[in-house]
């Protein structure tokens, strides 16, 4: 069985973001990067499937500039077999349909049985790329899976709202987008980090793949104005506690 895992590298969301000079994205300098959290669940599910069945080959794919190789190496150390880096220094201004086009063009003649990806990225949050890949490849897609079981066919649970899930059966080929909590992503062990260095990692220039023009443009990227309602308390911890208690006594009926 051939499995593709599509991942993205994103900044740590605790970062102090600065808006770039074009006002269309954040300044990429001085940020710590990591694998998009949702995609870690996708990697883990692919590796677990490999551990369950004997004949699974897992390729991890990432679109982005040179720095994304770090994310790819971690995915290899988590257990993916080989990697593809679609090098693209402009990926940050590409819209979801353009990124999906690159992935679909790469995947179209490779006969992947399952394509795993996160349900959304933490920076863009479009939740579109995986679904568009399935549409472009004309294969099935189940989004937001919170449970996965392979037993000849595939049974997944989609997370809906308010604690409800839907149970869905689907055959390969299929794109599955992963929700948080699907599994427990592993930490790479030192021996596996060493092994990962020997695994195949090919780089393809995005210009070699077909991609459409952007369907939209970013006019502005900015911090929202504070609503102004909140009172900010700063300083020495014991004093802060006293101040908060005084405010809660005055403003609420619970103390």
């Amino acid at each position, binding site marked *: 069985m051939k499995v593709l895992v599509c991942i993205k590298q994103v900044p740590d969301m605790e970062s102090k973001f600065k808006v770039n000079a074009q006002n269309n994205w954040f300044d990429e300098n001085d940020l710590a990067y990591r694998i998009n959290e949702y995609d870690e669940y996708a990697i883990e599910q692919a590796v677990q499937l490999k551990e369950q069945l004997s004949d699974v080959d897992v390729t991890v794919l990432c679109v982005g500039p040179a720095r994304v190789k770090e994310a790819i190496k971690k995915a290899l150390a988590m257990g993916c077999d080989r990697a593809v880096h679609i090098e693209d220094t402009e990926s940050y201004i590409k819209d979801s349909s353009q990124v999906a086009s690159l992935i679909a063009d790469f995947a179209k003649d490779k006969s992947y049985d399952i394509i795993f990806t996160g349900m959304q990225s933490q920076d863009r949050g479009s939740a579109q790329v995986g679904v568009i890949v399935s549409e472009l490849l004309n294969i099935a897609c189940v989004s937001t899976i919170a449970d996965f079981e392979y037993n000849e066919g595939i049974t997944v649970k989609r997370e809906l709202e308010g604690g409800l899930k839907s149970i869905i059966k689907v055959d390969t080929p299929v794109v599955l987008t992963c929700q948080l*909590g699907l599994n427990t992503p592993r930490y790479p062990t030192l021996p596996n980090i060493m092994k990962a260095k020997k695994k195949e990692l090919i780089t393809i220039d995005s210009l070699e793949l077909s991609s459409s023009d952007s369907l939209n443009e970013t006019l502005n*990227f900015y911090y929202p104005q504070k609503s102004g309602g*909140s009172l900010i308390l700063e300083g020495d911890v014991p004093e802060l506690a006293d101040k908060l208690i005084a405010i809660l006594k005055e403003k609420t009926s*619970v103390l």
Partner: protein
Amino acid sequence: MKILLVGEYRENKLLDVTYDLIGFADKLEADKVMLAVGYEEDIPKFDGKLYLADAKALGEYNPSAHKQLVLDVVEKENPDLIVFIHSSFGWDLAPRVATSLKATQFTEVIDYKDNSFIVPSCNSKLRRELKSKTAKTVITIQAGAFTPLTEALGTPEIENISSDASSNVNFVAYEEAEEKGLDLTKAEIIVTAGRGVGKKDNIPIIQALADKLGGELGASRPVADNAWVDQSHQVGTTGQTVSPKLYIACGVSGAIQHLAGMKKSEFIVAVNTDKDAPINEVADILVVADVLQFVPALTSKLS
């Protein structure tokens, strides 16, 4: 401007969020057409045209069939905008429709002005203002961002439609949440642990404050996913929606799904070292401090 609103039904019932679609169309003062899979006995109230597909014949959400219905109505009505709620239904179906129409899609729209759409970015810390370059635009709107200003009234003119598109995914059944256990909706005080609490071993610090205040322990999604706290304590879209008199968010960044579940709390205190965290937008008070130092100090002062 003409807008096609795609309504949501589940388990034979019209979902209340469908009225957010009407609120959005009213904000734009646009002509409304709606598509829904449902029953004539349970149709949304609005003035306009409703394309209704029979839920008994179609069953629950089926991506191929629903996509075909939307595309058929788009062909008949030629709308400028096709609008979904940002929900498990909307974010699954919208990209399928947009790809078929070669239209752009904007996800989780929270505002609209001068033909541009505002969406959150970077876990809602920042905003992007986007403009479509395609003839039609598909969007999902954030639930709660466009609630109707007045009660929706009117009786739509109904046209029945159907789809026979076969699906390559097969719905089997719904699964309800396991034993709910804890009912946070009636709690007067909730003290919630977020990812900033750091590890499972630190949860007793948050629990101690909740106990001291006579309240309940809440959890954000990562805390529940990591099993630091049982899932039954989770607050947010996929957990419980709460409205206590006092909500203390400890190390909670404030992802949109979490805010949607707690922003109706009467008084909100956020304890966080990050002044840009989205939780601060809904908080009445932001205590800028390390949770692990501040929370024990507060607990002991309350003695």
